[in-house]
């Protein structure tokens, strides 16, 4: 299509139709007029309201300014609080708290006899942990049945000694006996240590390194103190 032809066509349509006037049917005005009746008043009110200009009271201006200032101050405090919160968060995440000094205690009853090990701890480093037996709570947790068992054992040992020499009681020095019969709390502190090194290396290998020292270890030891009957001890001490 030639450009000139297109332009001519456009020109023809523009000249003919741009200022074209066509009278619509009268019904159209009736329909428009019906609708105009509904909002004629609104239109007037709108146009009048557009012209109105009201100057606000100076008190209102002051109140608005006050509110704005309060809001600005609040905003400032909120910003500071938010900044602090962010800083605390950064500090916390950059310096995570050290792992709590909690011992991982596994039940290793199967390793030892019930009478020997009641409580223990596995430590992070294979170090020797001194135990202050003075502070250690010595309690008997075994049932009476077990007590009887140990008592029976002791008596059998005594019987064996007595079988060797029936006058052993007379030959015994009361002071030596007293020292022998002294309670466990009075035992010397030296060499009263416990190590986890052995069984760690046997049963845990490298895992020992991952564990933590236990600050306090409660050891419950059952010691067969009742070797002699009370009246026998009293008799011995009377000598």
């Amino acid at each position, binding site marked *: 299509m030639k450009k000139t032809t297109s332009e001519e*066509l456009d020109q023809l349509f523009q000249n003919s139709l741009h200022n074209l006037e066509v009278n619509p049917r009268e019904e159209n005005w009736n329909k428009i*007029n019906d609708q105009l009746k509904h909002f004629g008043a609104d239109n007037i009110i709108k146009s009048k309201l557009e012209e109105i200009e009201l100057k606000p009271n100076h008190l209102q201006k002051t109140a608005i300014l006050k509110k704005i200032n309060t809001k600005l101050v609040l905003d400032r405090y909120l910003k500071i609080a938010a900044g602090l919160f962010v800083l605390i968060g950064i500090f916390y995440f950059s310096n995570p708290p050290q792992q709590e000094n909690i011992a991982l205690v596994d039940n290793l009853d199967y390793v030892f006899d019930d009478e020997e090990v009641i409580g223990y701890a596995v430590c992070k480093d294979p170090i020797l942990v001194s135990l202050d037996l003075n502070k250690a709570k010595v309690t008997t947790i075994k049932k009476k049945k077990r007590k009887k068992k140990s008592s029976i054992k002791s008596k059998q040992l005594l019987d064996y000694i007595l079988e060797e020499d029936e006058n052993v009681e007379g030959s015994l020095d009361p002071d030596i006996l007293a020292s022998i019969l002294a309670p466990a709390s009075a035992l010397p502190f030296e060499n009263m240590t416990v190590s986890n090194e052995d069984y760690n290396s046997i049963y845990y290998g490298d895992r020992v390194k991952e564990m933590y020292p236990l600050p306090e270890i409660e050891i419950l030891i059952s010691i067969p103190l009742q070797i002699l009957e009370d009246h026998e001890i009293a008799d011995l001490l009377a000598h």
Partner: protein
Amino acid sequence: MDKKQLELNLLKGCLEGLPQAQEAFYEHFAPKMFAICLRYASGYHIAEDLLQEGFIKVFRNLYKYRGDGSFEGWVRRIFVNTAIENYRKANNSYRFLELETIHHIPTNENIICQLKANDLLNLVQKLPDGYRLVFNLYCIEGLSHKEIASKLKISTGTSKSQLARSRVYLKKLIEEQTANEENNIRRIGSIIPEFST
């Protein structure tokens, strides 16, 4: 009283809610605005609906006219925008036809020049909606492709292609119309020999 003064008086009367002023306002603008509606509509009844809708909008928004620019131009813009909105509602989105092939149609310029305004109006109404919209906005309203693209939210390329296709379509319609007229003359000539001469 000149045209501008008349329009301002009509505007003032309408703003005061005077029924006579409103009717006079309608009488003054209706023929021009109805021609616009006919150009944008695909039929007479649709054009009437557009006319009513457009005038209601004009009366409702008269207080918004600030006095800058031609008042007739302001009213005209409302009608054009009403037509675009109407098209948008009808089509839900702007759909523009793509002709499968665009053939060059040779047209006799004399034939085109012989067409009357009403014939041209009928031809425009026969255009598909999208073509008619772009053709009206470009050729009659004088908007640029950029302005059309912005108004219809389409690309300038689409606007250009739609215009080109609308021209081809119009020429095709003109050819068909002239061919029909010639056939009619021949048919009448065969029945009445004097008529053909």
